[in-house]
């Protein structure tokens, strides 16, 4: 498949001229935002092909959330024991180090990109990426001719009574804390929500020494049956499922499908979870509730693409099979904005293997190289599998039935479900934005990342794509120092 003829940055023969401020020597051929599976694969592939790459990542070590691992000082001898497919990461991390030493990749760890702007509409597509570096939040600007957004995803949360109790944590959060810090949220951990991540989390927690009395899955795994062709074309994915299934059996973990945690109990921390059976629409079935004692509860309903940098640039979005918003991408991994590519979860939740493939394809496209047919086929196969999984685990409309009026839906601003229902029923709000203006739901520190999906469901609308003018809190000092044209900071 040959790339089309639109302008894209060619390999740089000489450093580009500076912009006169003297702050940055020259523009990179490519800036990659995010060093998870997609960004890492893209950065090393682009450098292999001769591009000069700047890789910006909020984390201190490459790998993103999926390949999150302990700091070297923690001295873990076998970090791979906490991972599936570690070799794919280790080989790319090695290539990253080699390229860094050779000066082909500049890896800016601990850099959180908060906005990307086109420097000059007339220029041949030069981008300025504004970042905050380190705990001191130092302002840094990176210039590049092309940008790849590999900003990944965060966990989809559906609130329930008691979900703000200490000891109730994100399933991905429990996984992240274990992978990076070698710690558990408790000794007896119920894992609940929906999606294949739950099986992985339960397996890891149990292997690390926690008792996992149950994995509570709202969907039915028999929901996969109607999508068998996509499953059968993905033997590796089936094997991965068998590994997790085997781990559950080995650790004696019960898998309760078509069930949900409808309440967490406790005063200063969670002490038990009430689990109930769900009907087809995820409405709790009366009379089926039972209590499971626990000292921690790990919850999550799949992932949501993290899109604010892309939507800030005007990139088009679509609604995917799992009900979340993702970027519209063409076969070259190009967004609808010329000069901006994307790969991995931002194009629709699909897992690490798909992200690795897409990162490599995006890098080849940016370098103006043809896309290998085998890699393109692999991407289609994995994307079809992801769509099948996404549809099977898409939240049913009845889940809001387990919210009581006093359940805080917005954790930051402490806005209860009753207030949101009132804004919808009595004040006529029909979308998440109006609910936010009326109730402050989604207006706090997390900028609606935790409650956005739930608020949209209560307002009776589809969740919109991430829209945040700044992707993280930015000190006023940093904003004030930005030149008016959005150019390089002094």
């Amino acid at each position, binding site marked *: 498949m040959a790339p089309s003829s639109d302008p894209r940055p060619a390999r740089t023969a000489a450093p580009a001229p500076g912009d006169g401020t003297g702050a940055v020597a020259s523009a990179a051929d490519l800036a990659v935002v995010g060093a998870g599976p997609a960004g890492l694969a893209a950065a090393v592939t682009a450098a292999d092909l001769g591009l000069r790459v700047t890789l910006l990542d*909020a984390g*201190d070590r490459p790998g993103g*959330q999926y390949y999150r691992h*302990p*700091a*070297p*000082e*923690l*001295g*873990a*001898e*076998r*970090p791979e*024991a*906490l991972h599936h497919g570690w070799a794919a990461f280790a080989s790319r991390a090695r290539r990253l180090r080699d390229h860094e030493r050779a000066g082909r990749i500049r890896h800016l760890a601990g850099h959180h990109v908060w906005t990307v702007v086109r420097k000059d509409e007339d220029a041949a597509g030069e981008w300025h990426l504004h970042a905050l570096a380190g*705990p001191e939040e130092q302002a840094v600007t990176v210039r590049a001719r092309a940008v790849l957004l590999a900003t990944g995803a*965060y*966990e989809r949360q559906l609130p329930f009574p008691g979900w*703000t*109790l*200490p*000891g*109730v*944590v*994100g399933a*991905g*959060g*429990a*996984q*992240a*804390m*274990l992978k*990076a*810090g*070698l*710690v*558990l*949220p*408790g*000794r007896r951990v119920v894992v609940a929500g929906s999606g294949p991540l739950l099986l992985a989390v339960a397996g890891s927690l149990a*292997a*690390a*020494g926690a008792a996992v009395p149950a994995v509570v899955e709202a969907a039915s795994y028999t929901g996969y049956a109607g999508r068998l062709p996509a499953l059968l074309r993905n033997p590796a994915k089936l094997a991965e499922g068998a590994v997790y299934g085997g781990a559950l059996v080995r650790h004696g973990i019960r898998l309760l499908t078509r069930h949900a945690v409808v309440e967490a109990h406790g005063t*200063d*921390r969670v002490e038990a979870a009430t689990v109930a059976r769900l009907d087809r629409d995820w409405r709790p079935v009366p009379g089926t509730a039972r209590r499971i004692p626990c000292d*921690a509860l790990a919850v999550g309903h799949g992932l949501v693409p993290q899109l604010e940098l892309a939507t800030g640039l005007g990139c088009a979005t679509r609604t995917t099979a799992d009900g979340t918003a993702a970027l519209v991408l063409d076969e070259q991994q190009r967004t609808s904005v010329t000069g901006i590519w994307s790969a991995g979860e931002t194009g629709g939740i699909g897992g690490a293997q798909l992200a690795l493939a897409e990162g490599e394809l995006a890098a080849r496209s940016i370098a103006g190289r043809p896309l290998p047919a085998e890699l393109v086929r692999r991407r289609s196969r994995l994307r079809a599998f992801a769509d099948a999984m996404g549809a099977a685990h898409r939240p049913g409309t009845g889940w809001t039935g387990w919210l009581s009026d006093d359940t805080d839906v917005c*954790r*930051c*601003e*402490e806005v209860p479900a009753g207030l949101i229902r009132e804004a919808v029923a009595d004040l006529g709000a029909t979308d998440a934005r109006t609910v936010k203006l009326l109730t402050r739901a989604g207006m*706090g*520190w*997390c900028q609606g*990342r*935790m409650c956005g999906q739930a608020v949209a469901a209560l307002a009776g609308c589809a969740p919109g794509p991430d829209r945040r003018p700044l992707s993280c809190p930015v000190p006023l000092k940093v904003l004030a120092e930005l030149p008016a044209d959005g150019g390089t900071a002094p």
Partner: protein
Amino acid sequence: MSEPRDLVGGAPETSFTLDFDGRKLPAHSGQSIAAVLWSAGITAWRTTRQGGAPRGAFCGIGSCYDCLVTVNGRPNQRACLLPARPGDTVTPQEGTGHGALV
């Protein structure tokens, strides 16, 4: 009872104690402040602005801001991201963390 360390083997390079609310908690270099608190069995270290409800780490990746804590007098630090350092004093945070300034 097995521990996460049994799974990955090895040993931390250095260990020290962290001062939390007058308690000395064992900490290892390379751990986040939230990880140190979790390994001491502590899951809440701040109270909310409105309801005064206890909160701790939730998302574990720096997105939810529920784990905000005051470290060495500086409020609103994300405990799940901030590495623990020898000599750190961690104070449970009430509300905005700026109460002392009012």
